[in-house]
């Protein structure tokens, strides 16, 4: 890096030391690879892919801004969707180009695909991996090509006005003719396959061998004329009175509620899909940038960073000693105890990754018919 003078370095170093005082020891347990004095050149900035809206705001408050304070490295956020950046990253790796981002905040399923394809850096030597829970470890791949950072639940969100007798008890409400044309699900069916399998009369253990119950459920759902879209669509549809009930990520339902939309959510009797998101670093970064990208991931695993980041999202993290946000204490979308987790539907991400294309395809085939 040419632009860095000694004064800059001293300044950033001073800032760093001050940061240590503020952030405490947890942030400093980083720096695994080399002695501090020999740390590699700092890049001017790191680019971290993130989802927009409240998602990036939370990441910025909890991880990026404190990281900048700690290291002096600015963090720029790339808000390209996780699905849409994937071909860009894969093409860059195939052409051995420097990737357009340093850190990818990604769903574990998508990240696992990238890991299988071999475009991820190994993160096994991050010191904070020693302190985090088992959930941080990805399944079905060797080592840590990705690090899971928190879990989330695909809840059944509903408009309380449409349910005077209280929350709907079963996912079968989606196929109830009373709500014909007033239900919404993701346009690839994500999050709904597992509850559909159970609501359709099957068992979680039948996945992936026998998905017929799920397909039967989707066929009934199709007859109920669901709307299909993405997170902003659901918020808009609730807001404009187009729908009464939807399958969505709890964070988005919570965000809609914070913005004054009349909405509540529940985990029905069949349970609800539990998934994780994670962070990973793409291959072919210059060595010094790779080092600092890994520092960023390491920092995101600290309790301080996770507490602020995940308060914003309302999601349970992997760092020890996290406290749930006040509005989510006892909420089924924020599992804490083993019995909370027992209500949630989880399938090994290896199975998910291998069969997701086929499940999406089948869902589309039914819904586009």
């Amino acid at each position, binding site marked *: 890096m040419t632009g860095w003078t000694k004064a800059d370095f001293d300044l950033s170093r001073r800032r760093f030391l001050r940061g240590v005082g503020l952030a405490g020891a947890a942030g400093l347990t980083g720096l695994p690879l080399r002695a501090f004095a020999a740390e590699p050149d700092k890049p001017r900035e790191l*680019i971290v892919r993130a*989802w*927009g*809206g*409240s*998602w*990036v705001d939370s990441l910025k408050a909890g991880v990026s801004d404190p990281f900048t304070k700690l290291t002096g490295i600015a963090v*720029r*956020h*790339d*808000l*390209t*969707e996780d699905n*849409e950046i994937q*071909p*860009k990253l894969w*093409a*860059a790796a195939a*052409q051995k*180009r420097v990737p*357009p*981002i340093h850190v990818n905040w990604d769903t574990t399923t998508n990240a696992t695909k990238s890991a299988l394809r071999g475009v991820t850096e190994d993160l096994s030597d991050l010191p904070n991996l020693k302190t985090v829970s088992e959930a941080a470890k990805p399944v079905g791949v060797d080592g840590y090509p990705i690090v899971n950072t928190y879990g989330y639940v695909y809840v059944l969100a509903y408009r309380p006005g449409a349910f005077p007798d209280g929350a709907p008890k079963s996912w079968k409400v989606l196929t109830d003719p009373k709500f014909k044309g007033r239900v919404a699900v993701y346009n690839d069916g994500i999050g709904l396959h597992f509850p559909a399998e159970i609501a359709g009369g099957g068992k979680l253990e039948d996945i992936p061998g026998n998905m017929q119950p799920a397909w039967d459920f989707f066929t009934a759902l199709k007859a109920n004329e669901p709307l299909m879209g993405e*997170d*902003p669509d659901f*918020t*808009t549809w609730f*807001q404009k009175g187009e729908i009464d009930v939807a399958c969505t990520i709890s*964070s*988005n339902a919570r*965000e*809609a509620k914070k*913005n*004054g939309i009349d909405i509540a959510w529940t985990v029905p009797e069949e349970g609800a899909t539990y998934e994780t998101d994670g962070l990973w670093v793409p291959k072919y970064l210059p060595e010094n940038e790779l080092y600092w990208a890994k520092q960023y991931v390491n920092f995101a695993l600290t309790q301080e960073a996770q507490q602020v980041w995940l308060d914003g999202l309302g999601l349970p993290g992997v760092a020890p000693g996290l406290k749930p946000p006040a509005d989510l204490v006892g909420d089924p979308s924020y599992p804490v105890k083993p019995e909370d987790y027992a209500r949630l539907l989880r399938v090994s991400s290896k199975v998910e990754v291998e069969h997701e294309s086929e499940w999406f395809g089948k869902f589309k085939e039914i819904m586009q018919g």
Partner: protein
Amino acid sequence: MKGDRSKAVTLWTFVVAALIMLSAPTLVVLGASFTAGNMITFPPEGLSLKWYAAIAGATDLRDAFLRSLIVASICTAVAIPTGTLAGIALAKYRVRFAAGVQVYLLLPFTVPLIGSGIGLMLIFGRWGVLGQLWPVGVAAAVINLPFMIWAVTASAAALDPDLELAAANCGAPPLSTFLAVTVPAVMPGIITGALLMFILALNEFLVSLLLVDARIVTLPVQIYNSIRSIITPDLAAISVVFIAVAAAAIALLDRLVGLDIFLKSK
């Protein structure tokens, strides 16, 4: 005269229907941008400029808008000579395999934008030029080029072969004839085409999404990506500012060249 009235009524019925169809969502969004509330609604909940204040402070939006202007300028600069030459060639000469050439030159419309985006990303990636704005501008020129070619071809109706012949007979060398006679004759088409290219590039989103990175993100990509969980009125305000800037640009163009030269019937 009764016939004239029925003609006018019929025509205007269609025109009004088309006008409503074209502008209704825009007018609603325009009105909604002045809301004092936190959601896009029409009529707006109280009047305020707070969403304009919100975007005025956002330097990233301003930077993205400037980058979009650069992309649109590059696109137009590439498209004008390319499309004009091709348009004149197709209009003036009998080209062998003309049908094949036309089908080829229409590829930008028959290739779905996602295909164009992925393909151009692979090509530009291989050449190592990604991460700059000019490939984004060139890409916008590629995917909209038929508009430029056809705008020129269509206005070549005004091309008068006799006039070119006369110029040549008076001893004017070919390049002078081309610049002094041919190009002015198709100028209305060049202006229409250039205007379209500029506006389409300014708003190009899907292909750009694959070609930009966070450092050079353009406005439409930035807006699309910023929407995650909720759509707020600042997006409406951005649209209004966008329209205002574009209207100013069109007004300027009108002052400079006179917009209706290419529409007025002779």
